[in-house]
């Protein structure tokens, strides 16, 4: 029925024939075929897609544009009619010249029924509303109605459609079906089978998108129960997507459950930083605390998924060890300073550095703008520069072997050597030989990459900016606390050259500041070059200077980014 699909940009489809249909009396022209959500192959356009094209929402549970159609929830039942045909296979006309419509005696599920020319779809007739009420009632009779303690409350389709199509009281006079609660499906997921409406989205995702036939249904009828294979935990790198897909509170994330009511969460468009894919995410935060990542739709990058590895890699942001103070060290004594007094000192020290005696290491986890400014600084000193390559095993779907979110940005800005990391040895050698006297490190612990503490001790000046303390910051003469990506704005360029921006979700901790901010303060004094004031301006300036980014503007990035040639 379907194959495991790689998430790729769908090739631009050849122009397809358009057909006209009417949705609730309004005419809409839609392509005859549309790419299948899983395989990308052209398949006949369905009623729900035609309705979507004209912004008519047909309520649904089991349908998901990225999954094979199951057609089991029956919430999307609509009425429809098709042009009546005469014996000559020509449409029969009404006296006023319009086509005579033959209304189907049976409803159809909008998610699976293909449209045909002249079809009329009725999504809001009394009968359709009656059917929806009926379906919703059926879904609710055995539902525990435990919204007050349910994590899904606030983003639950049962709640939403109950408001739209539900009844105020129940006529159910029987005893509810009881099913397993708090089922430990795997290391990251808890299942409440009583809340489950058996839409099978989780099963289809796991089987048809991930290729792991881990979930299934046991028992029959109303006793149907979702479960993982006995003795085999549901543990693939995409399991948490089933929590997003679950339209109700049946599947919950162990990481997120009972942490925060979702209506308190501020949602900020951002990016995952755990690998070079750059999955688009929404950061859920409240009062400067981040609670979760959820994938955000981007057809060119991650469809609507993200991997568990990336999704759960955010705890470091709230690590109590975070660097929150500017520290200046003279000899053995480190003193807490502040930006106001430390920056002029640093500028003065840097200004006196001779060209050729400086090295700059900027992490490929920094934003493109930060790397651009570092590159400006480096160029002023004719410094040796590099970034640190970081790799891990890739998987078949989204997780990339390149575990830096911005390796391409590091290459574009010229900060990374070719290949990345090949200058690290030269820098170590330069320090050893005494040629390099100043080292500027952003976002890396260079002691773990061939520039050991003994070498760092030889430097006249070591400037380190980071988020968490490490062996390098411990030895630095100037420690400049930086920001996690959720605490600032910026862009990353993914491994395929997709330039994407992310927005600020929470305030930085303590004295930590966005790196772009203090680099912009430093540059005019040290190099005489003043960066544009705004981040937008800085990006546009950078795009003008980097050949690969020619013509790209901050505004053009939009929410889903722009693909450039690598």
């Amino acid at each position, binding site marked *: *029925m379907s194959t495991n699909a790689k998430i790729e940009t769908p090739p631009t489809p050849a122009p397809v024939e358009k057909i006209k249909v009417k949705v609730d009396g309004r005419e809409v022209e839609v392509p005859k075929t549309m790419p299948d959500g899983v395989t990308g192959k052209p398949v*006949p356009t369905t009623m729900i897609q035609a309705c979507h094209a004209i912004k008519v929402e047909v309520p649904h549970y089991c349908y998901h544009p990225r999954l094979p*159609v*199951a*057609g*089991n*929830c*029956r*919430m999307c*039942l609509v009425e429809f009619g098709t042009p009546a045909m005469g014996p000559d296979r020509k449409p029969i006309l009404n006296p006023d010249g319009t086509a005579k419509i033959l209304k189907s*005696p*049976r*409803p*159809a*599920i909008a998610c*699976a*029924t*293909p449209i045909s020319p002249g079809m009329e779809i009725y999504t809001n007739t009394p009968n359709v509303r009656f*059917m929806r009420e*009926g*379906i919703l*009632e*059926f*879904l609710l*009779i*055995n539902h525990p109605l435990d919204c007050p303690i349910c994590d899904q409350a606030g983003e639950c389709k049962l709640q939403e459609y109950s408001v739209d199509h539900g009844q105020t009281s129940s*006529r*159910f*006079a*029987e*005893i509810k*079906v009881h099913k397993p609660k708090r089922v430990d499906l795997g290391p990251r997921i808890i299942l409440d089978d009583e809340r489950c*409406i*058996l839409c099978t989205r989780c099963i289809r995702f796991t089987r048809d998108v991930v290729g792991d036939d881990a979930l*299934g*249904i046991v*028992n*029959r*009828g*109303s*006793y*149907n129960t979702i479960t993982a294979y006995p003795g085999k935990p549901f543990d693939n790198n995409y399991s948490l997507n089933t929590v997003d897909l679950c339209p109700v509170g049946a599947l919950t994330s162990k990481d997120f459950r009972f942490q925060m009511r979702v209506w308190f969460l501020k949602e900020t468009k951002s990016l995952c930083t755990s690998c070079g894919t750059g999955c688009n995410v929404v950061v859920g935060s409240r009062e400067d605390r981040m609670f979760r990542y959820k994938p955000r739709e981007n057809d060119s990058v991650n469809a609507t998924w993200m991997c568990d590895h990336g999704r759960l890699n955010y705890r470091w942001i709230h690590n109590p060890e975070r660097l929150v103070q500017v520290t200046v060290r003279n000899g053995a004594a480190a003193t807490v300073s502040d930006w106001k007094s430390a920056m002029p000192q640093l500028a003065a020290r840097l200004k006196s550095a001779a060209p050729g005696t400086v090295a700059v290491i900027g992490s490929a986890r920094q934003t493109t703008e930060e790397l651009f400014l570092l590159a400006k600084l480096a160029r002023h000193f004719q410094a040796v520069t590099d970034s640190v390559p970081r790799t891990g095993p890739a998987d078949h779907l989204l997780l990339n072997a390149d575990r830096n979110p911005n390796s391409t940005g590091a290459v574009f800005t010229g900060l990374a050597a070719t290949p990345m990391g090949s200058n690290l040895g030269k820098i170590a050698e330069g320090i050893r030989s005494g040629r390099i006297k100043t080292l500027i490190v952003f976002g890396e612990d260079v002691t773990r990459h061939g520039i050991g503490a003994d070498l760092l001790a030889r430097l006249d000046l070591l400037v380190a900016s980071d988020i968490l303390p490490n062996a390098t910051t411990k030895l630095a003469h100037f420690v400049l606390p930086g920001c996690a990506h959720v605490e600032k704005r910026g862009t990353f360029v993914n491994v395929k050259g997709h330039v994407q921006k992310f927005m600020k979700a929470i305030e930085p901790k303590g004295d930590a500041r966005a790196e772009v901010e203090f680099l912009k303060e430093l540059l005019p004094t040290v190099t005489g070059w003043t960066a544009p004031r705004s981040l937008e301006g800085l990006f546009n300036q950078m795009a003008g200077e980097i050949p690969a980014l020619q013509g790209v503007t901050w505004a053009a990035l939009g929410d889903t980014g722009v693909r450039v040639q690598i």
Partner: protein
Amino acid sequence: MPQEYRQILKYADAPGYTPDVECYLRHGGYQILKKTLEIEPKALPDGKSMSPAEQVRDQVKLSGLRGRGGAGFSCGLKWSFVDRRSGKPIYLICNADESEPGTFKDKQIIHKDPHQLVEGMIISCFANDVHLAYIYIRGEFAEGARILNRALQEAREKNFLGKNILGKGYDLEIHVHRGAGAYICGEETGLIESLEGKRAYPRIKPPYFPAVLGLYMCPTIVNNVETLCAVKHVVDLGPSEYAKIGTPNNTGTRIVSLSGLVKRPGYYEVEVGKVTIRELIYDPIFGGGLRDGRQLKAVIPGGSSSKILKAGERFKLKRKGPDGKDVEQELDMLDLPYDFDSLIAAGSMSGSGAIIVLDDSTDIVAALSNLSEFYAHESCGQCTPCREGSLWMSKALHRMANGQGRKGDADYLLKIADNIPGGRTVCAFGEACSWPVQSCVTKFKDEFVARGTQDEERRAAGSK
């Protein structure tokens, strides 16, 4: 005088008739297959020629043979929907899941005359260019599966199956596949899923019409055991002779499974439409009447999912008069001819040909509760209305049958039942589980209301 017309069961109960191939051959077995394989391409007036397979398909279409499984759909038309241009293999599946309560006709064929089914299947496969076919038999028919496997082995040994059948260059293999015991496996797309090794969830149509996207996403024909046997007789007699059996648009014979409170329950093969329900129940050669002193209460005419007919109900039917014109005729329920069209006109169906007779000793609430429990147990649970509705109705009926009824339960049940059928569900199970409730509660509403009222009063009086 009504009488049996034994065509498919002609030899089944003959003394000394055994299910082995030798016995079948002694009774003219596999002669129709030989005849079929010897059909020559026929030249048409327009210069084209009609292949032997096409000719058989044409015969089946002209014979008016309708499916014996439940829906009564034209067999010839079903075959004509098969996508023959896909380049994919075409499969034929014999539906031997016979799971509709009250039905026990296919079992007789399988147990007593398995080679007739095999021959019918080979002919049907030949007609549809099928080279691999399956018999999907319900899990409970362990003995039936054993008999069929033996019959298939015998047929292979005689070269009625396998490569180059009877030297005519046609290859076919048939496999028996046993189900694991689920009513829904009789639904053709549920059956296909089950045959593919999956949970028997019926498929959504569109797009998964078996004639185009069936078994392994290839064009597939699913026919009932009795239908496939009838194909043999269509080819034997020729379509026009076959169509003379039975009545117009209701041709051939049907094996009626008669059960319930009659003196002579059993299976009776009759010409379709030539016998009335009254005759089937009361005639000494059929049901032989009700037990002494009992009155008829109701008849479930076509398997337990068909809508119940209440004794004394009258229906207006359009029938063709002797002059060929439609005449409207009012008939008592018992006088309905037992055929496809009359029962549809009476708002019910002849379904799988299973008549269940209820007399006045029947507690209709308990009977419906029993039926409803079956459907709640057998709902596959794929789609919402059937999954939730079937169990809801069953629970309510169970409550009523156990003295916890309410006055309003009749309307309560109807409101639940009305939300299930009519295209709301993936497959016809929605109808199957709601029709009995709709028809019983509507037609016996006074009994349901009385029961509920009685229960409420008893509870109000304080005795639980």
